[in-house]
C-alpha cells in the first residue's frame, strides 16, 4: 500500500466535507421531509390502531425508516454528484490524472456517503424522539448502521460509474432502491410473502439491515447472518466500484 494512501482517502473525503459544510442547512432540512411524511402517513395516520409484536406500529417502522433513509441518503449523496462529475463536469478526470489511487478514491467517496447517511439517521432519531418513540442506538446499532451506509455508498459509486446517462441514474434508483425501500422489511414484515419471494427478499442488502437495526433497537439478538450478507454486499460493491474506475482509467 502506498504510504500516502490514507492521506489520499482523506483528500477525497475532505472535498466532500468542504461542500457539506457549505450546504448542510439545505441538506438537513431536505432530509427531514421524507422521513417526517412517512412517519406521519404510515406511523401515525395509517398505523395508529396497528400493533406489531405487541408494540406500536410507530416503534416498528422507525428502525425500518432508519435503514431505508440511510440507504437512500448514502446512495444518492455519492451516486448523483459522482455521475455528474463523470459525465458533465469532468472533475473525475482531475482525480484520474492525479497520483490518488483508485482504492483511495473509492474509500473516500464511501466514507463521505457514510457520514451523510449517519447524519440523516440522527434526524430520524430526533423526529422519533419528538413523537415519543425512543429508539435504542447502543450496542451494535451504530456499527450496523455504518455498515448499511457503506454498502449503499459503495453501490452509489459503482452505479455512478456504470450508468451511461444521468437519466439512467434516476432509472437505477427507480428499479433498485424504490422496490427495496418498500419490500425489505421497512414498513412491514416479509413473512406474508410466498416462501420463494421471502427467500429472495432476505438476500437483498436492505432486508438484513432493517432486520438487524430493528432487532438492536428492540434489545433483541443480532443474527450474524445479517452482518455476513451485508458484508458480502459491501465487498462486492467496493470491488465493482474499484473495477469500474480502474476501467475508466484504462479507456
Amino acid at each position, binding site marked *: 500500500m502506498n504510504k*500516502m494512501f490514507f*492521506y*489520499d482517502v482523506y*483528500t477525497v473525503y*475532505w*472535498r466532500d466535507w*468542504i*461542500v457539506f459544510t*457549505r*450546504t448542510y442547512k439545505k441538506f438537513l432540512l431536505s432530509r427531514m421531509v421524507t422521513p417526517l411524511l412517512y412517519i406521519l402517513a404510515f406511523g401515525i395516520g395509517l398505523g395508529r390502531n396497528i400493533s406489531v409484536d405487541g408494540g406500536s406500529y410507530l416503534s416498528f417502522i422507525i428502525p425500518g425508516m432508519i435503514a431505508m433513509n440511510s440507504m437512500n441518503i448514502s446512495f444518492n449523496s455519492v451516486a448523483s454528484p459522482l455521475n455528474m462529475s463523470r459525465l458533465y*463536469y*469532468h*472533475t473525475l*478526470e*482531475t*482525480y*484520474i*490524472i*492525479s*497520483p*490518488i489511487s483508485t482504492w483511495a478514491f473509492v474509500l473516500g467517496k464511501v466514507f463521505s456517503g457514510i457520514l451523510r447517511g449517519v447524519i440523516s439517521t440522527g434526524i430520524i432519531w430526533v423526529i422519533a424522539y419528538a413523537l415519543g418513540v425512543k429508539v435504542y442506538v447502543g450496542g451494535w446499532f451504530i456499527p450496523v448502521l455504518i455498515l448499511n451506509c457503506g454498502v449503499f455508498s459503495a453501490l452509489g459509486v459503482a452505479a455512478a460509474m456504470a450508468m451511461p446517462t444521468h437519466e439512467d441514474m434516476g432509472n437505477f434508483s427507480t428499479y433498485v432502491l424504490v422496490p427495496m425501500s418498500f419490500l425489505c422489511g421497512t414498513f412491514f414484515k416479509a413473512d406474508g410473502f410466498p416462501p420463494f419471494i421471502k427467500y429472495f427478499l432476505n438476500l437483498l442488502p436492505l432486508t438484513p439491515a432493517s432486520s438487524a437495526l430493528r432487532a438492536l433497537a428492540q434489545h433483541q439478538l443480532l443474527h450474524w447472518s445479517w452482518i455476513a450478507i451485508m458484508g458480502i454486499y459491501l465487498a462486492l460493491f467496493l470491488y465493482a466500484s474499484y473495477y469500474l474506475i480502474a476501467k475508466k*482509467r*484504462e*479507456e
Partner: protein
Amino acid sequence: MLKIQNLCKNFGTRVAVDNLILEIRTGEIFGLLGPNGAGKTTLVRMLTLLAKVTSGTAIIDGHDILTDADSVKELIGVVPQNLNLDYDLTGWENLQLQARMHHITDHKECDGRIADILAFVELTDRAQDICRTYSGGMKRRLMIGMALVHKPKILFLDEPTVGLDPQVRRKMWDLIRSMNANGMTVLLTTHYIEEAEQLCDRVGIMELGKLIALETPSGLLEKVGKFVVEWMKNENSNSRVFATREEAMAFAAELEENATIRAANLEDVFIELTGRKVNE
C-alpha cells in the same frame, strides 16, 4: 523532454492516432494544429494517461508513460479542453484540492504556492468566491493555475482558448508565454491559426491521426510559399500560394477575375497540405 515513439490509438476499426513519432524539446512551446477529429485531443489524452495506448509509447523526461505512470503524473500538468473545475469549491479550494492530490502536505508551503499561483493567474481578489460565479476567462485561468500547483515540467494545454473572446485569448497567450519564460515546456493543441503563429516555437500539423508536417511557423511558410493570390470564380473562393511576390503578381495579372495578394499564414499552409481549412 517528450519522445513519442510509434504511438497508436484505435477505437474499434477507426484509427485516431496513427503511428505517431515526435520529439518535443525542453523549454519549447510546441503546437499541434489540426481540424476537429484530427487526433490532437486523443494524442494528448494518451500522453496525460487519460486514454489507453493501443501501441507504441512515449517517454516524458526519461519516464515511460506505460511503465512509470506514477512518476509521469508528477511531471505533467494538464489543462483539458473541457472545463474541469469543481464548481462547488472556491478558487482557493480548487487549488488546495490539487495540492492535496499531489501530496503537498506542508500547509505553509501549500498556502504559499496557492497564493503565488492566484497572483500569477490574476485571481487573488476572487480566490474566496465559488468558482461557479467566475467568467469564462477566469475559469480557464484557474484551470491553468490548477495544472501548475505541483510545479510540472511539461504542461499540456488542449485547446486552451476555445470559446474565449479575442481579448481574453490574448491574455491567455501572455500567461502561456510567461510560464514558458520560466522554463516550462508547453504542448498545446489548437485549431486557431493565429494562436499557433503567435505562440509556438514549432508546429506539428495533424490530419487523420498522422503528423503531416513539422516545422517552425516560418519554416512551414518557407516550404509552402509566402504569398497568396485569392480570387472569386463562379461564387467560389480560390487561392494559390507562391514563393515570391513577383510570381504571385504575375499569376494575378493573368486572371480574368479581380484578385488580391496577401502574405501567407498557417491556414494557407494547412490548405496546401490537406486541401481543406483547419476549422472544417
